[in-house]
């Protein structure tokens, strides 16, 4: 029983899962409140549907199984649209895009584009677009997959990695917020649309969410939100 928009309205709230590990998209503040670009977007979408947004924070490896098992109505966690995912889930229209970036230490002068990582020790995040991109484009001597961005940043700073293939927005946010001795170099690689991911077959709900996204893009609220979270 995939939920329709009416089911959600009748229910009065939408159960949204996120990792809370992915600033600026989603993270948890000191009081335990979940915050971020995805969260604000979720609230706007739910407001349009006339329901309340209820968030669950859980590890990424628990999110998709939970969605498949009907534990959530949707996922807002900087989810990129890919063909494999489209075959198994429903997607709303994209609400933003993000690209892959190369991250190096500030004092590095030799790495300028992803191709320059060839033959080096490179880190990336496992089980994601990033891993595939790194595999196809970086031609690293050693490619190490980490569970999350913080682990990559730490090992980059520790000198064990020469460079890293990461998500652009998250990397920029981290460098900016915490003043890290790192920098993003090169072009924007493989920009990818980011959307809400919904249970397979929930096309009705997906189009209701897509309409809400389009409305907010039309009335300028989307722009304001992006400025707030991505001004770095």
């Amino acid at each position, binding site marked *: 029983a995939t939920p329709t928009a009416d089911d959600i309205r009748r229910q009065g709230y939408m159960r949204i*899962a996120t990792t*809370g*590990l*992915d*600033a600026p998209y989603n*993270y*948890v503040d*000191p*009081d*335990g409140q979940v915050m971020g670009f995805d969260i604000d977007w979720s609230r706007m979408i739910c407001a349009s549907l006339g329901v309340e947004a209820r968030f*669950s*924070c*859980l*590890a990424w*490896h*628990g999110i998709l*199984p*939970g969605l*498949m*098992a*009907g*534990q959530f109505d949707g996922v807002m966690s900087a989810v990129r649209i890919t063909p494999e995912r489209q075959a198994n889930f429903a997607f709303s229209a994209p609400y933003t895009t993000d690209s892959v970036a190369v991250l190096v230490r500030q004092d590095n002068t030799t790495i300028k584009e992803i191709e320059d990582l060839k033959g080096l020790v490179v880190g990336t995040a496992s089980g994601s677009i990033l891993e595939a991109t790194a595999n196809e484009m970086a031609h690293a001597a050693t490619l190490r997959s980490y569970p*999350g*961005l*913080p682990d990559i*940043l*730490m090992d980059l700073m520790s000198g064990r990695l020469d460079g890293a293939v990461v998500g652009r927005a998250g990397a920029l946010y*981290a460098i900016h917020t*915490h003043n*890290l001795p790192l920098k993003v170099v090169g072009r924007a690689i493989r920009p990818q649309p980011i959307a809400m991911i919904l249970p397979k077959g929930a096309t009705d709900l997906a189009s209701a969410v897509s309409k809400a996204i389009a409305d907010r893009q039309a009335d300028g609220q989307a722009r304001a939100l992006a400025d707030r979270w991505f001004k770095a």
Partner: protein
Amino acid sequence: MIDWNFMVTYSPRLLKACEVTFGISVTSLAFSTVAGLGIALLRLSSRRILSSAAWIYVWIVRGTPLLLQLFAIYYAMPMTGLRLDPWTAGILTLSLNSSAYFSEIFRSAIQSIPTGQTEAAIAIGMGPLQTLRRIVIPLSLRPALPPYVGQAITLLKNSSLVSIIAVPDLMQTAQSIYSTTFKVVEVMLMTGILYLIMTSLLQIAQTSLERRLSYYTVK
């Protein structure tokens, strides 16, 4: 070096997460201790079917990852019509999982009791349950205690896996904090201390109980 302000700011959230970890762990510990004892007794049963069934249970439960067991209980059980909330599923999984490890610890301890001790109980007219409660359990306490506490601590640490189905425990909260703040040292220090406090309850209890059970070594 260390940002003390930061630690003060985040400690309420970590303390709150401790409650989750502690609650899940203590509940699961209670269930799995009882279940573990039951399985140990089945394993020691002279009926071949019972002891084989217990062997198979221990084999499979110790043999497969906790994550798989959690998924099976949380996501596959609803197919059978039984939908559990995350807390229940987490506690059930942890209890089942630990019970297999505990059962082997208990079995080993029970087997180290001289048969004369239980024969004396049977000869005086005790039934199997009375013998268990009054003689076997008290006497296996001493040899079971050190590995039992080790396994209880493992249970406490394993409880963090439950965060994968949306119960944010101490470890998950710690990861969440350092992934936005990058204060690895501070977060790990605080988390380490909180875990150390929780496990110290068990470890200090162990040491003092061992001392009290020293009659056992007077031979």
